[in-house]
């Protein structure tokens, strides 16, 4: 229950696939070239909207008699009021504290007694709750989940200990981990003015002040059927989900008209910035750099897809440029890579990183990373072969994603909760396939050295590697 999805902003369609989904279309392969034709993701997915505004997506997969039931709210940490950082995630924890008709613990007990698994997670742009159960228990899950969409009851007696849990979660995930501390500082530096610069779990001193009233105010503003997406994947068809949804969620009245998700625009600086963290808990040094780039929602058509392909060309596997040049050829690094967090409402980040070999300075490695990226944008653009292999890797991810109904539910949920459509998901592989090599070079031009935020993770002075 109650997990922070620090990584959520990089849940591009691509990286969700990396985890494993249900492609309805037949997959064709060309034996001559070994390339794979772009599949359609979730070709059998159906969708409809209830009268109260709740969007519903159904993704049938009949291999096992189980279903994944998820509700996604279009609200995340980037929607929090100033000074209330952490409230989106804190509310996610508090959603397990009971309602008017079902006291604390009852829903979890019912899930458990029926052999179900449950959890929830928060990102900067969405918050989601789910259960995995045998199909005959779906109606019960829907009934309870619909109930807590409108009837949450909180008391100081359960809010205060839960705030301690959240503070311990923060310690565990963030304050215990120098690399997470550095990542937080880099985001705060990169996302000038924009709330993606605030950690999803919140600033510690602000979490400490959050109370029941803050949670309920946030809940009443954002938790309403017209601000949510219901996703059901598994052993069921759309007609049956529609009937069950109308009997449960359909009875929840609109509770609010959520405000437009307009946030301060992240300021672009042509000033290189560096975050330098030396910590006695660092036993392996590393360097990373991040840039502000468009997301799938803000990019011109094809540009976000090109960034996904670029991330593969630069940093996907041992034939990628960063790995090949830095690890295999120049022997400056023991590992290196890149990734792009494409699924976000607003401008997002592209990141490259390297872990130096012993005796190599972080500054040398950073310079080498920048040179490879500059060459990719300039005199050494990606070759047709590199681009084809990058696409092949991304398409393979989508194909293997067929194996998990939960992954499927997450791909659709995350996309719809960040302003995308079902067609966006289904056609993503074709759009990847269509990215021209020139677009990948153009994407690399979005990563100039002067605009980078560099992060150094170091041992304290005097403990530098010899």
């Amino acid at each position, binding site marked *: 229950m109650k997990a922070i999805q620090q990584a959520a902003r990089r849940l591009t369609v691509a990286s969700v696939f990396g985890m494993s989904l249900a492609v309805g279309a037949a997959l064709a392969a060309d034996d001559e070239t070994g390339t*794979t034709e772009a599949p359609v993701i979730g070709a059998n997915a159906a969708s409809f909207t209830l009268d109260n505004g709740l969007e519903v997506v159904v993704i049938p997969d009949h291999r096992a008699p*189980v279903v994944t039931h998820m509700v996604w709210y279009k609200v995340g940490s980037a929607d929090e009021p100033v000074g209330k950082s952490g409230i989106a995630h804190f509310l996610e924890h508090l959603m397990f504290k009971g309602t008017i008709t079902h006291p604390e613990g009852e829903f979890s007990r019912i899930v458990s007694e029926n052999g179900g*698994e449950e959890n929830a997670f928060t990102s900067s742009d969405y918050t989601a709750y789910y259960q995995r159960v045998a199909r005959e228990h779906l109606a019960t899950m829907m009934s309870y989940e619909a109930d807590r969409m409108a009837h949450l009851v909180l008391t100081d007696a359960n809010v205060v200990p839960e705030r301690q849990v959240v503070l311990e979660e923060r310690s565990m995930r963030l304050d215990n981990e120098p690399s997470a501390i550095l990542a937080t500082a880099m985001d705060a530096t990169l996302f000038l003015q924009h709330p993606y610069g605030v950690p999803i779990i919140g600033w510690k001193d602000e979490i400490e002040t959050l109370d029941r009233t803050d949670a309920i105010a946030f809940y009443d503003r954002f938790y309403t059927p017209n601000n949510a997406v219901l996703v059901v994947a598994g052993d069921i068809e759309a007609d049956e989900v529609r009937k069950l949804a109308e009997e449960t969620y359909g009875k929840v009245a609109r509770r609010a008209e959520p405000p437009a998700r307009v946030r301060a625009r992240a300021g672009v600086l042509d000033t290189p910035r560096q975050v330098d963290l030396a910590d006695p*808990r660092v036993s392996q040094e590393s360097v990373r750099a991040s840039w502000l780039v468009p997301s799938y929602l803000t990019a011109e058509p094809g540009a976000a897809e090109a960034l996904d392909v670029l991330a593969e060309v630069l940093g996907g596997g041992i034939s990628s440029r960063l790995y090949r040049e830095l*690890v295999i050829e120049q022997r400056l690094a023991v590992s290196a890579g890149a990734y792009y967090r494409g699924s976000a409402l607003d401008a997002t980040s592209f990141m490259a990183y390297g872990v130096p070999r012993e005796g190599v300075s972080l500054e040398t490695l950073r310079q080498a990373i920048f040179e490879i990226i500059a060459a990719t944008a300039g005199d050494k653009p990606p070759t047709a072969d590199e681009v084809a292999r990058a696409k092949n890797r991304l398409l*393979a991810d989508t194909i*293997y994603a067929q194996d998990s109904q939960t992954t499927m539910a997450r791909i659709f949920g995350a996309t719809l909760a960040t302003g995308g459509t079902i067609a966006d998901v289904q056609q993503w592989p074709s759009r990847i396939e269509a990215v021209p090599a020139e677009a990948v070079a153009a994407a690399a031009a979005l990563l100039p050295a002067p605009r980078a935020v560099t992060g150094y993770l170091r041992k304290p002075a005097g403990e530098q590697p010899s």
Partner: protein
Amino acid sequence: MTEHQSSDRTAAGLVRGLSGRLARAVAVVSFLAASALPVAAAEVQRVVSDGGIVAWLVEDDAVPLVAVDFAFDGGAAQDPKERPGVANMLSTLLDEGAGELDSAAFQQKLEEEAVRLSFSAGRDAFNGSLRLISDRKEVAFELLSLALNQPRFDADPIERMRAQLISGINRDATDPEAIASRLWSTSVFGDHPYARPVDGTAETVAAITRDDIADYHRRTFARSNLVVGVVGAISAEELKPLLDKAFGPLPAEAELVDVPEATPTFGATETAALPNPQTTIRVGTVGLKRHDPDYMAAYVMNHILGGGSFSSRLYREVRETRGLAYSVWSAVVPYSYAGVFLGGTATRADRASETLEILTAEFKRMADGGPTDKEFADAKRFLTGSYALRFDGSGKIAAQLVSLQLDDMPIDYFNTRNAQIEALTLDDVKRAAKRVLGEAPLTVVTVGPSSS
């Protein structure tokens, strides 16, 4: 590449920092945590190839994919005594060049054909995993055959992987879970191979030679200690020649060194200083091996105490009531040569001793009184009801087929497992609780700021 996405609090806390066999054991445990009736799809066939290779197969052509998991009994317990880390290093090198293909060429072939191949070393077994699109069976098994039978072990990839592994070991040197895990193993297992880290140490990994790797490969990759699980769009007749292609060239008999039964000693207290806001706590004591008649009872007991649900006793007492921690868990871990019980949490340093007292008191309460009737009934309902959740993906099922064979479980296990849980009595669970938590002392490991 894969992110830890779902972040169940228990799963994340549990698997992180645990290595090798333990991780596999946890996977076994969690699959045990599963419905009244498993799944129609999970009808398991025993396939024997012309060359005598045995595989357990679940045929399912709903998606055009095939998942092949396999394992060689042995694992890191077969590492040379002075060179822990050999099996783990081997696991990074099998896709780094084989036959005529050097590292780059082999990787390129995997990418072109969208074949996924991965290996990992555990405490008691060396595991492999092949994923393929069903119209590419020949080429996928050909690549697997090359990796298993003709690995090149070229100098460049060896040095590259060595540097990467040492870097990871260095990083773990200040990771609280990794530190706790290592301290726990050395404290409990003494001279036994289980005391040695699966990943090795920076020193041993620096010293491992190509001969060490090739020798481990030659001794432990054989048909006699191989188990195979296959799930997906493939028939038994299609599978047979492919099994011979991949596994047929292996030697008939493995040359495994005898691993003695472990005699774990419990009761020590170990601490390590790390300037964190939290103190990471790991506790453990005697557990039960997989074939112990009380194993399933212990498994049910653990579910009630600290296994995977939001209603466990530890979850309630440590997290929900007192807000002391985000993650608190326990597990029964059946190694091949020892059974152990583990628990852990991470809590604010100034309340670490209070948290440890609660853990200890809950263990004692379970040992003395066992679960209540209601807890026992609820646990049975959950464990049988959730079993079906383990069967909604080919990869998940393939992993279970391998675990079952490594553990010498019967081929009809999927269909009999829930009945075994149903047949348990409260007395069985009380007896198992006493055997696990009531006889040996606790080993306690804490990692945190030195004042705590």
